[in-house]
């Protein structure tokens, strides 16, 4: 029953986004124009640590931009209507999953654009399978952490500014470990070394989802 509810809510999210195509467009444009600005500044980067750090910083800001609107696009009336139909936990799970998928796709697209403009030479010696996995898990992780923060900021009625203040310190640990893991993967190190970082990222993701699931009903109640 609950899974059916979540599936319906996922479908709702999908349809809402299909109707407002500018949402996707704005996300993609944000990433591409950020990368293009960086390209104007640095041209090609060959240094692995800097290439890696710049990529994650761009992705982090893209995540803030993409998820800031997650709980703000609906007006209060529709939100209220939604909450009378579905349980709040289903709402937050559906939205977390949806945001996770969106950010997973967005991070791969960003990587493509980034490699195109800033250069792909740092990926030459990389363990690409691990690196791509880290990029996807990291992107999803940003989405999971920021979904609850986005809801909180929307609830406090203080939009994207508050979201950045609340979100940065919480996302920072994840950013540090994801940077480290992807740096190791770019250096061509195998599972025996990178594995524990990936495991740790997955662990944070799971804890975050569990917390969101536990806390969201209190957030929703007025």
């Amino acid at each position, binding site marked *: 029953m609950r899974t059916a509810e979540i599936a319906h809510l996922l479908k709702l999210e999908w349809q809402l986004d299909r109707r407002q195509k500018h949402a996707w467009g704005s996300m993609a444009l944000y990433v591409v124009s950020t990368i293009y600005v960086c390209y104007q500044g640095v041209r090609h980067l060959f240094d692995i640590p800097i290439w890696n750090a710049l990529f994650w910083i761009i992705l982090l800001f893209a995540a803030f931009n993409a998820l800031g609107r997650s709980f703000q696009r609906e007006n209060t009336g529709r939100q209220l209507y939604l909450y009378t139909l579905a349980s709040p936990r289903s709402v937050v799970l559906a939205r977390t999953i949806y945001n996770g998928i969106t950010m997973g796709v967005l991070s791969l697209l960003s990587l493509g654009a980034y490699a195109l403009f800033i250069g792909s030479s740092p990926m030459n010696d990389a363990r690409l399978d691990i690196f791509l996995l880290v990029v996807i898990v990291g992107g999803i992780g940003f989405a999971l*952490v920021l979904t*609850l*923060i986005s809801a*909180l900021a929307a*609830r*406090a*009625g*203080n939009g994207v500014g*508050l979201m950045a*203040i*609340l979100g*940065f*310190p*919480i996302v*920072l*640990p994840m950013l*540090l*470990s994801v940077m*480290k893991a992807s740096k190791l993967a770019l250096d061509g190190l195998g599972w025996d070394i990178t594995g*524990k*970082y990936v495991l*740790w990222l997955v*662990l*944070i993701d799971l*804890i*975050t989802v569990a*917390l*969101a699931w536990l*806390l969201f009903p*209190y*957030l929703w*109640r*007025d």
Partner: protein
Amino acid sequence: MKGWWWKLLSVVLLLYVVIVGLGTPLGPALVHASIDRIAPGPISLEATGYNTHFAANTPEVWLENDGQRVCATDVKVLSDVQFSADFNVPEGFRTNLTSLWAWDAADGQVVLREAFFTQGLGTGIAQDDCVVSDAARTSFAFPNRSILNETIRNLFFHVPMWFTMMVLMTIAFWQSLLVLRSGDLVADGKALSAVDVSLLFAALGLITGSIWARATWGGWWTSDPKLNGAAVTVLIYAAYLILRGSVPDPHKRARLAAIYNIFAYVLMMVFIMVLPRLTDSLHPGSGGNPAFNQYDLDSTLRAVFYPAVMGWILLGIWAYTLHQRTARLRSIYDEANDR
């Protein structure tokens, strides 16, 4: 009045910590030798000690290389902290680093490890009959470690600050859970007070840590998982205060702040506990670096460290109760005066 004994206890403990922690001398050590390389043949050197008592007890002095000893042919005491020694260095030491040792009745054995780069290596020297004393010193003193030196006393201040901060944040976490369960505004006030006081202890922890880092590592701040954890913690709770400031309605504010506090606390704990163990770190207790308690924290340090932890935590809780009571009285006063 019942229930104030622990406040008295914290004061007594902290007085003890300040007096004993700052008053106990550091143990004796050798800190400097006038030369830094030795070659086969007669040599003469001057050595400097710290908190040693050479004047009253002429030391036995010897060189040691890979377990093989050469005793000094002559030792002259210059002062309590200085002696000069003559050696006849034989040919054939096995490794290229030789240590300088000394022993006297008051100080026990003191050593300057890997003091001399050694020339004329071979397959070992013919061991002469150099017999040395090893009776330990009996005075109460803190261990004298190179690099740490006198800053080892900071252990009683820096480390308990973080423990106290953690305890207060756990109190705030608990009060936030109560807020979510009952919507109780008093619990919300308690959570806020605990966060306020814990930020004070975080600031003290950062200051004492920064000074310590400057003295031992050479920089006020290094990029290090433990330090990043501390910075993230302070940022999270600063964000908590900003979140509170941006919601005018008290009930909504209590709930939103509680949700953020719980979310942040759990993630922060996971981060602080796990991440330093994943990466390299200069900081004790992480990345393969031993914490103090593995071999550095000997019984003399323990005798002050444990009371210090206890005393600071109790003081932190005391400050928290005071802060929370004044905040409550102020809100009652404001209500009564219709502000």
